[in-house]
């Protein structure tokens, strides 16, 4: 307890510096902005800003980037409620009931409940992060290469289970990602692999190049093909104050959403999107009168909005304690740390406590800022929604291009990003989710490294992965997950769960 207080006060001393507050605010505002705007998400935004963070201090860079992720969760709900278009994929379900509330003239109440629910979830998740991270990092220090390899296997398998669509295709996407990650110089022998005599490929393909191509450009093309720009029709916001009945209905839903979201955020492959879907499904399952859902039930707003914000924050736990990113946004955070010369992993907490605790505390401060800023500023965000996509996408394109170009100041990365834009689009058309590919890409080199080390230590004995108890447990869970989704009953359920998307 004393240690916790000491840690948190260290965090406050970092996060309350004027500069830190400023970057936190910038991150939150940017996050809300891209959250409100449909067609651009946190992955593309963070990828875009990554090169620019090079000049910042590591604390400030991470504080700002984190703000973008959870800020986007706040912003996404605004669009979902007011326009019935999810500003963010994690607020798809919020639109179901939120928009109906808006049609009944209760948009204000929905927005307030979403914001307060998110804030509550943010507070709980921050505390969870502060309490759970140190012991987890302790465990992580006991990990050898075999455990790391097994853990990454588990993470990748979990990503498959939680992705929607075909399991085999998702596994194939992961392996493709792993292979793409191996392009470039082999760290052990210094040999250049799969570079086809292209000098720029000796250092491998940049993560930003793939992320921006697959999530940025492919997304723009997809939006453009979807045809007519939908008319933005904004309802009157109405009173911001929820009624007493709203409060009574909403708070248990907020609690459940927070709990479920926190849990799903930690899981590899989880994150804000999955959390909001699951929370909505859970509410519908346990409600005495599920018929109200889809007609403007406040629980349908409160639960998913709390869940996505909680998950956005707890997904930092595996990143900060184990150095393993559970979703593409966290994979970008790995990139942001590496740019600053920080190797993500359990040692971050001991070697850079000011960074670690500063970031955690800034998340709480950021949530506070978001609640205070968002409700009064709602009019401004609504105005933004009236900007048509034909003006929006050139702007996104310009920022993406500048971001990619400045990675290494060469045309090469830009051309490669365009190629990955096409590849991403191609896979979308073939029904393959891009997120597992990105996870595989970031884990590829780490997995190879740990596999080699583990095998070297065991003198080529592959049973090392099942004879070490920790490693065996992790692999066991992975195997169990695979068996579970192969079961016909679960399979049907899983397909049903993702149909609503």
């Amino acid at each position: 307890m004393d240690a916790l207080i000491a840690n948190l006060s260290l965090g406050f001393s970092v996060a309350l510096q004027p500069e830190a507050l400023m970057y936190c605010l910038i991150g939150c505002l940017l996050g809300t902005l891209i959250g409100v705007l449909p067609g651009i998400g946190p992955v593309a935004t963070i990828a875009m800003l990554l090169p620019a963070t090079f000049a910042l201090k590591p604390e400030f860079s991470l504080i700002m980037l984190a703000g973008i992720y959870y800020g986007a969760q706040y912003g996404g709900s605004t669009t979902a409620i007011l326009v019935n278009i999810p500003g963010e994929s994690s607020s798809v379900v919020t639109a179901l009931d939120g928009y109906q509330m808006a049609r009944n003239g209760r948009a204000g109440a929905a927005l307030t409940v979403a914001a307060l629910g998110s804030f509550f979830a943010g507070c709980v998740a921050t505390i969870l992060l502060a309490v759970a991270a140190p012991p987890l990092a302790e465990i992580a220090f006991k990990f050898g290469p075999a455990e790391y390899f097994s853990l990454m296997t588990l993470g990748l398998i979990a990503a498959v289970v939680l992705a929607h669509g075909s399991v085999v295709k998702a596994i194939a996407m992961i392996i493709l990602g792993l292979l793409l990650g191996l392009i470039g110089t082999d760290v052990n022998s210094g040999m250049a692999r799969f570079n086809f005599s292209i000098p720029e490929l000796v250092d491998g393909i940049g993560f930003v190049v793939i992320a921006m191509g697959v999530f940025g450009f492919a997304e723009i093309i997809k939006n453009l093909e979807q045809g007519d720009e939908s008319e933005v029709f904004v309802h009157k916001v109405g009173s911001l104050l929820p009624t007493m009945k709203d409060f009574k209905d909403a708070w248990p839903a907020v609690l459940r959403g927070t709990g479920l979201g926190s849990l799903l955020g930690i899981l590899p492959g989880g994150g804000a999107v999955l959390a909001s879907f699951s929370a909505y499904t859970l509410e519908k399952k346990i409600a005495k009168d599920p018929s109200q859902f889809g007609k403007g039930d406040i629980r349908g707003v409160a639960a998913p909005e709390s869940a996505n914000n909680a998950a956005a924050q707890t997904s930092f736990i595996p990143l900060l304690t184990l150095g393993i990113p559970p979703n593409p946004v966290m994979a970008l955070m790995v990139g942001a740390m590496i740019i600053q010369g920080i190797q993500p992993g359990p040692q971050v907490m001991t070697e850079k406590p000011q960074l670690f605790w500063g970031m955690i505390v800034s998340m709480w401060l950021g949530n506070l800022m978001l609640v205070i800023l968002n409700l009064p500023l709602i009019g401004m965000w609504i105005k933004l929604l009236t900007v048509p996509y034909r003006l929006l996408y050139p702007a996104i394109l310009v920022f993406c291009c500048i971001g990619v170009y400045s990675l290494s100041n060469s045309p090469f990365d830009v051309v490669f990003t365009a190629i990955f834009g096409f590849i991403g689009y191609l896979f979308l058309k073939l029904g393959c989710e891009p997120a597992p590919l990105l996870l595989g890409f970031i884990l590829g080199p780490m997995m190879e490294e740990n596999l080699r080390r583990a095998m070297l230590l065991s003198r080529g004995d592959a049973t090392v992965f099942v004879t070490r108890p920790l490693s065996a447990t992790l692999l066991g869970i992975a195997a169990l997950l695979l068996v579970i989704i192969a079961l016909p009953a679960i399979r049907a359920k899983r397909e049903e769960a993702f149909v609503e998307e």
Partner: protein
Amino acid sequence: MHLRNPKDFWAGVLFAAIGFAFAIVVKVAEYPMGTASRMGAGYFPFVLGTILGVLGLIIVAKALVSDGDRVPKFAWRPIIFILGAVIIFGLTAKTIGLALAIVVLVMIASFGGHEFRMKEQLIASVVLAIGSIAVFVYGLKLPFPIWPSFFN
């Protein structure tokens, strides 16, 4: 031949081709395989490539005996104009400077949309160029030339 599940079929073909290509490159370029205890540079990619190839074949096989969706039509117009604009930006930015490169990028990209409004897009591109230069070149100090190099 009539394909019952074209979407999965082509996805499988693509995976199989890429997977085996990786495995073949390892062999052709003679990356050292090493032993299980001392893996060479070729070991892990060869194993992964082979697994991906086999998975691809499994997807193909499954697609032949099940029914599924067609591959949706490709929207070539946005693909060509958006990605084309990006590539041209990448290739020319250094020579023609950021200001002009952004205007060119926006103008080409706007052909990818549904309607093209010359005046509106021109204004938008100029505003974007000024804004980006202010933020990225003056604000974040990214090393971009602003004006074409032949001016200097």
